[in-house]
């Protein structure tokens, strides 16, 4: 693909002129919402704005809406070149679910007016979106959701409660599934509404999780309002819009989570550090060694499968049902790794805080705990298996009785 060479050179040039060296290799932490060194925070904002000015935070989105207008091959070059200089793209992090889920769905289902009003904010990295899907009584059985929206002539009036809205307390907008017709089959009376979070009818309460942090909220709607022109897709067709959005979510989750420890030790190196090795360089615990080998083989197989499915789908960027296979496989890779690392660390792998443990050790524990959510969110492990059984294998539906 020699025709990409000029573009690669252009990207490399632009990066060397625009990427602040202070951010090199810093990863996501300068964008994590925690205040750091003033200079780094300033540079983080500068980098966000420079990247957004080229639309390269959302590289494949239309240029006239603030995206980069690149094709997939060019986007890959951009990401490779950024990786080379130790730069990350902060826009998807800053936009919450705007970059990975809501944005792609607006581009697909939205009116021209909706695209013009919502996409540029996501591209800038300044507008964060959250997602109002789950409710206390609608988890895996999402279609049972009860949050209600009434057409009040001038606007939609929304009442109900959402849960697991990630980042609701720091988001400016929310994409919510709401009930707009209670008289029909539950999937046929749902709509997708977009609403502002900063209004009197919306209240958020962070939920403290087992890992200690509060990345999720309960969100209460008491006569909250949404504009009439912020209905995404057709009235009562929210189930298909919402399902499509989840496919985008799954597609964004097919890569296994990056390892959390900054020093970048491989699992086998980490295990050797804590467990020791025999005179032939083998891990001293042969049982653990076998299970780590199995895990690494599965990790490799997962990576090869992501690449194979991408190659087979070449020229067809449609999100496929295979995403469910990859999500479950990625889940296994991440959770297995966290368990094996913890096991290898022994008593050093049970720390919560304090100076008896290194930062990396604590981070492993917290990561292991928060990673338990991977097989729950975005359609649980079991829901993905339902999808594979029904959509790929053509087996009968098991969850819709009556």
């Amino acid at each position: 693909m020699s025709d990409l060479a000029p573009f690669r050179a252009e990207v490399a040039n632009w990066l060397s002129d625009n990427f602040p060296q202070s951010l090199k290799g810093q990863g996501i932490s300068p964008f994590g919402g925690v205040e750091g060194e003033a200079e780094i925070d300033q540079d983080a904002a500068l980098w966000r704005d420079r990247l957004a000015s080229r639309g390269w935070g959302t590289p494949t989105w239309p240029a006239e809406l603030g995206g980069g207008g690149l094709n997939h091959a060019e986007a890959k070059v951009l990401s490779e070149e950024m990786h080379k200089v130790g730069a990350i793209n902060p826009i998807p992090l800053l936009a919450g679910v705007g970059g990975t889920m809501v944005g792609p769905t607006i581009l697909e289902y939205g009116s021209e007016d909706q695209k013009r009003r919502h996409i540029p904010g996501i591209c800038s990295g300044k507008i964060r979106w959250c997602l109002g899907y789950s409710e206390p009584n609608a988890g895996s059985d999402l279609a049972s959701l009860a949050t209600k929206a009434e057409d009040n002539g001038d606007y939609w009036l929304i009442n109900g409660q959402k849960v697991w809205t990630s980042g609701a307390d720091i988001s400016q907008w929310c994409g919510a599934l709401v009930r707009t017709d209670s008289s029909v089959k539950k999937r046929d009376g749902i709509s997708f509404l977009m609403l502002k979070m900063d209004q009197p009818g919306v209240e958020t309460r962070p939920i403290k999780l087992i890992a200690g942090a509060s990345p999720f909220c309960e969100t209460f709607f008491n006569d909250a309002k949404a504009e009439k022109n912020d209905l995404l897709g057709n009235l009562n067709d929210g189930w298909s819009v919402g399902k499509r959005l989840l496919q985008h979510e799954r597609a964004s989750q097919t890569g296994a989570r990056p390892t959390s420890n900054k020093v970048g030790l491989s699992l086998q190196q980490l295990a050797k550090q804590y467990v020791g090795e025999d005179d032939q360089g083998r891990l001293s615990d042969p049982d653990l060694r076998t299970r780590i080998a199995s895990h690494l083989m599965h990790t490799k197989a997962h990576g090869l499968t992501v690449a194979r499915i991408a190659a087979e789908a070449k020229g067809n960027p449609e999100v496929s049902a295979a995403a469910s296979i990859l999500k479950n496989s990625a889940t296994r890779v991440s959770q297995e790794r966290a368990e094996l690392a913890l096991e290898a660390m022994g008593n050093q792998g049970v720390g919560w805080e304090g100076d008896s443990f290194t930062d990396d050790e604590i981070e492993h524990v917290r990561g292991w705990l928060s990673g338990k959510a991977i097989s729950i969110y975005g359609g649980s492990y079991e829901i993905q298996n339902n999808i594979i059984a029904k959509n790929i294998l053509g087996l009968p539906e098991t969850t819709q009785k009556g």
Partner: protein
Amino acid sequence: MAALSEEQQMIKDQAVAWVKEQAPLTTFRAMRDQGTELGFFPETWSAMTELGWSGMLVPEAYGGAGLGYQTLGLVLEQLGRNLVPSPLFASSVLGASALMQFGSDEQKQRLLPSIADGSRLMVVAMDEGPRFNPASVATRLLGSPDSLILTGEKCFVMEGMAASDFLVVALIENDAGDPSLGLVRVSADAPGIHRKPVKTMDSRGYANVSFDQVAVNGLDVLIGEGNIEKLFDVAGVTLSAEMLGSAAAAFDMTLEYLKTRKQFGQVIGGFQALGHRAASLYSEMELTRSCVEAALAALDQDRADVAELASLAKGKTSEFLHEMSSQLIQIHGGIGMTDEFDAGFYLKRARVVEAAFGNAAYHRDRFATASGF
């Protein structure tokens, strides 16, 4: 595979059609019932040689088609689907690969054309005990260049009764007197060679072969650039392609049954316990396929990570075929236990090929070593 070339697609289509029409499981069953010592029907083998499959790997300069491992894998997978018995793997894949890796130009000129046309069955004799273990070969080639003597015992030699030639894995001393593993070709009917059929549960042809003071021509010692580990990588990867085919067929049979068998007034595939099991098996099959395809490509490209990918492919395929063949029986219930039904053939074949050239445990260990722990 991202995309098949036109030629590959043609070869695959041909293999799909041939296996379906000419090599159904009823043919395998007939052979099993008849109890042939060869472990395959000679007419099946001639049909395969006429299709050119025996010469797929052999370079054009030596009378073959030089098509490479990825293309060969397409055929092996289809043969695996119907458990088609033939000496293709033992001779045209492993025997040919051994010569291509280890042979001198003279040896290739002399031996490869007849392997390619299927008239010579060149079979590698490796195992000396119940478990695959290249580290414990006792068979030796001794003597001076003009009077070489081969002595040792080999067991579970694939197609050992049908072989016209053996390529014997043996310790061979180099000029400095250090022994290393190499290959020695002998005619199967040479004086001092005794073979005995071994009846295995997959009804294929195996033999225990003893080499008692067998005189070897110096021209038949293969000490080229080859590396015996690499030859076993070829064996593991190509066998994985065949095993993937067997596992895929077992999956298809199972899925079909889940969609047709009714109990409690509904098809049993509608029960979530079985639907989820099918989903897991299918996902595992997709992962396994990626490993096999990547390893075949690595062989064709002679990449540095062949060993790692070969252990990944053989290890993963062994695990998956093991589970799939067990679930084939379990999900079919009572009918799966009957000899009249074909499920048992897959289960019996599975355990044999799982053990060949290193089982899953062997390859996990090897993968761990390759990964530095």
